[in-house]
């Protein structure tokens, strides 16, 4: 671990050290506001260091890379952590969260995500994946006296553990077949005709089960709606954006490292993408609860992600990265609105609570509408450019059939997003009063909305930046 390696790991180190100090401080000093403020500061410093620090050697101890790709995601996840902490300031104090532990866990998961986005070896991938998953197990059921939180935590934990089992055994088999953990070579293990090839194939299959769980591809997605509904809103935001985004980035790293190697996996990924998009959008149609609807919508979006990954072309990968960024902004915005509206005795989830909300709380109504329309892919929002770039990559890569399925899924998705937006602006029957929202939350909303609209109206700079990132 030379001095350069330390510099390369700087953002993650800042997060981890910051998290531990705040954790220790939390033991003695129980005031929520300063602790969370500290957390925000740490996250922002990490984001700055990730942006500023010069890209030193490309790989640290064979486990993680510090290439601009990883740095980009380090910035993204640190910013997400900062925004989520800003969101949770009022939310946590109202529910007497243990501020120290809460901030530490959020920062730890951000660190894990940043590492995962740059993992260049299966060991690195496994460790970073497990590190932020463990943090999330606790965060999901952080709200002590809330039954739903406990239940969600349980489900996430049990299924997560099983997934970890699959992941571990998968990696073991891949190692057995290829003799190495380092990614480009591990993937090439599939090509060699040797007697160990079946084990390698089985290994990657099992690894895909775990990845399928983490980014909720269809047969493995059943936990998503319950955990999103049960978990506190800021944690759900972290789950929806961070955990899925980081695994997506890891997938890009894995697949981009050995372009031709994983042709065997394409039919499987194709089937999973198809299932995910169709089942996800169909399940979302009859939803009456906004959080569950957003859960299913995140399932569908991961289907779109796979469609872009399949061609394995640079356009595909940059489409995935751009789509992830826009998806993160939109999902974070949507959950931020839910958080800012929730008050002491609960979060507004049932659609009935949202009747005519666009008139009672015009700003947040408009923000939620913009986020939903961006998720749907409405022009003028980032979602449209994301979808456009994604379809362009899919059709160019020859997956026109899947692109058509993606179009049908987005048509269905317009139906349920529009239904929510119409409910927002339907006639204003009397509805329970919700929280007016603090200025900090409004700041977070502003950040998300301006990100969406900017990416919608003038995406050129980001698209060019991303094109340079792809390994």
């Amino acid at each position, binding site marked *: 671990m030379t001095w350069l390696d330390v510099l390369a790991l700087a953002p993650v180190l800042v997060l981890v050290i910051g998290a531990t100090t705040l954790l220790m401080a939390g033991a003695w000093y129980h005031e929520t506001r300063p602790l969370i403020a500290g957390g925000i500061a740490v996250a922002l410093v990490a984001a700055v260091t990730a942006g500023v620090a010069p890209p030193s050697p490309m790989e640290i101890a064979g486990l993680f890379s510090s290439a601009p790709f990883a740095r980009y995601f380090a910035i993204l996840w640190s910013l997400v952590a900062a925004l989520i902490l800003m969101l949770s300031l009022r939310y946590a104090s109202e529910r007497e969260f243990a501020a120290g532990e809460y901030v530490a866990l959020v920062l730890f998961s951000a660190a894990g995500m940043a590492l995962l986005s740059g993992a260049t070896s299966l060991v690195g991938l496994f460790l970073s994946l497990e590190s932020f998953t463990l943090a999330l197990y606790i965060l999901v059921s952080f709200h002590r006296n809330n039954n739903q939180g406990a239940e969600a935590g349980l489900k996430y934990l*049990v299924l997560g553990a099983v997934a970890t089992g699959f992941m571990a055994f998968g990696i073991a088999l891949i190692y057995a077949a290829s003799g190495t953990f380092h990614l480009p070579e591990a993937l090439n293990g599939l090509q060699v005709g040797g007697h160990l090839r*079946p084990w390698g194939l089985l290994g990657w*299959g099992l690894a895909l089960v775990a990845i399928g769980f983490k980014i909720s591809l269809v047969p493995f997605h059943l936990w998503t709606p319950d955990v999103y509904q049960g978990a506190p809103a800021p944690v759900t935001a972290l789950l929806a954006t961070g955990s899925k985004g980081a695994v997506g980035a890891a997938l890009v790293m894995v697949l981009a490292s050995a372009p031709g190697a994983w042709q*065997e996996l394409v039919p499987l990924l194709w089937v999973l993408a198809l299932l995910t998009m169709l*089942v996800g959008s169909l399940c979302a149609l*009859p939803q009456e609860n906004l959080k569950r609807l957003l859960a299913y919508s995140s399932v569908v979006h991961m289907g779109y992600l796979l469609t872009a990954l399949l061609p394995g072309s640079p356009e595909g990968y940059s489409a995935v990265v751009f789509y992830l960024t826009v998806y993160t902004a939109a999902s974070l915005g949507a959950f931020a609105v839910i958080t800012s509206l929730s008050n002491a005795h609960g979060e507004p989830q049932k659609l009935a609570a949202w009747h005519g909300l666009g008139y009672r709380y015009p700003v947040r109504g408009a923000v939620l509408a913009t986020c939903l329309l961006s998720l749907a892919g409405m022009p003028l929002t980032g979602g449209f450019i994301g979808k456009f770039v994604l379809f362009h990559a899919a059709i160019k890569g020859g997956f026109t059939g899947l692109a058509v399925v993606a179009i049908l899924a987005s048509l269905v998705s317009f139906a349920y997003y529009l239904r929510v937006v119409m409910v927002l602006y339907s006639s204003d029957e009397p509805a329970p009063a919700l929280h007016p929202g603090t200025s900090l939350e409004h700041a977070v909303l502003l950040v998300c909305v301006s990100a969406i609209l900017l990416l919608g109206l003038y995406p050129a700079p980001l698209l060019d930046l991303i094109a340079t990132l792809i390994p």
Partner: protein
Amino acid sequence: MNQTLLFLIPLLPLACAVLNMLFGMRLPRLVAETLAVSGVAASFLLTLLFWGYADGAGTHALLGTWLPVGDITIPFALHFDALAAPMTLMVTGVATLIHLYAVGYMHDEEDYARFFGLLNLFVFAMLAIVLADNLLVLFLGWEGVGLCSYALIGFWYQKSENARAGTKAFLVTRVGDIFLAAALLWLFALTGTLEIAAINARAASFAPEVLTALTVLLLLGACGKSAQLPLMTWLADAMAGPTPVSALIHAATMVTAGVYLLCRLFPLVSLSPDGMAAIAVVGALTALYAATCALAQREIKRVLAYSTMSQVGYMFLAVGAGSVAGAMFHLLTHAFFKAALFMAAGCIIHLAGGENDILRMGGLFKRGPRELFWVFLAGALCLAGAPLTGGFFSKDGILLAVYTQGTPLFLALWGIGLLTALLTAVYTFRLVYLVFAGEPRGHGHPHDLPLLMRRPLWPLALLGLCGGLLNLPPLVGGHEWLTHRLGTLAGREILAGHSIEWALAGLATGLVILGWGFARWRYGQFRGEQENRASRFLLLGWRADALVDLLFVRPFTAMAGLCAIGCDRALVDATLDGLARQTTACGERLRGLTTGRVSTYLAGFVWGFLIILGWFLLALVK
């Protein structure tokens, strides 16, 4: 004076119409009425003033471009020639008298502005047809008169039957209009222009079957407006409008527009013998049909309506026989005496206290003003074709023209013409006897007629009586002023020996006397209202309305139902809503998967694992 002043003839009534419609209600009643009458009278005087312009090929006047079509432009243009001049004079003259009469007739009607506005607008539209230089301006006038007749028939809109009669009139005439439009499109495609003179000039170059098709289209277009078979069902119901309207529109001007169209395009129409035969046949059959129906009508105005249909049939027969002069001659005389008859009928209804069923009138000779009887009698004599009256000479001229054609078809048509002449005499004198003879049957208490309703009748009755002077045949020393006036436009030269002409004249007189005798015997003393199947059949116009309803209206509504409910709601909407319901339903079923129990979620894992195992085995096999 330069030609563009010609435009004042149609534009003056238009200006008065617009003024009346916009500010009519605000102006005092007298101002509005004088405005209306003076507008039409002024254009009458102008026609007289410009009479000289109509000599020779007539004068063309250009107002401005109307419609640029590709590289050529269709202008607003007038063509005032020998054919148009007498027609304009008749239209403006009769209109002025009818306007005066209307002032009296509509005395207690408070919505007078709308009435006079529409009447003036009608005169403008009619003049647009008469003076049109190209077919598009003619079409503008054509649909304009259709609109005014629709609005005026439905003038007393409070009773929705009147409005429905108006709609029926507009729709049936519109069916005719699309045939005219088809001819118009075809002619434009053939000649590249719509100018009537140019079309007539190039007509010779068309192929025979094209000529016949064009003539048939023009015939059907004319039938719509002139209420000939098969588009005649609207005229009888059009009597729902006020009497001045019936007098002007459904007696003198609009119904003759079809004849005028055929005369205008006579050079084209005359080139196709089958076309001419068709026109003649339609004319003759309509004449016969209308005469039979007139026999059984109970309302005075419906009798006159069917009589008009019959007389216009005669005009069509004349055009079919190649005699434009004969058709125009009959058109002019008919306009005079029929307008007089309608106005007289208006007075009769007025006197009978609004009752217009002739079986409940009678005895008006004793009780009513004597001059009304003399005017009505004068008109009736002309209509019946009594010798020396205008009607006699014009109808005799037509029968002569048909007879001189000589072909067996035209001989048959000549026979029908004679039979119709007899029937005409019968229903005319039936009318006279039922209204004037015997004891008053109705309970109406007669109140006196305003002066304005009596005075305009006289000039028209006299014009009708001595209308023969217009085109007196050489037989009686006349020099056929109208035929010479028309010159080349007059159509076929009618050459016949004096002996034939005397024979025909005698025959016609005999028929009139026979008809009068029968009517006197049958209707002299009122024998009560006998109602039998035949008379009811004739009363309903051979049940033509029921036929049209069966053949067109009912299938149309059925198709409408099929499209609106059948296709749209049942087929297209159902599939779409069904699709939407299906997706939501299977969404609901898939949602059921998340039962909330951890074991199901683990089962989901296993399903996923099985998919991967399946893929794994496949990959191994490859």
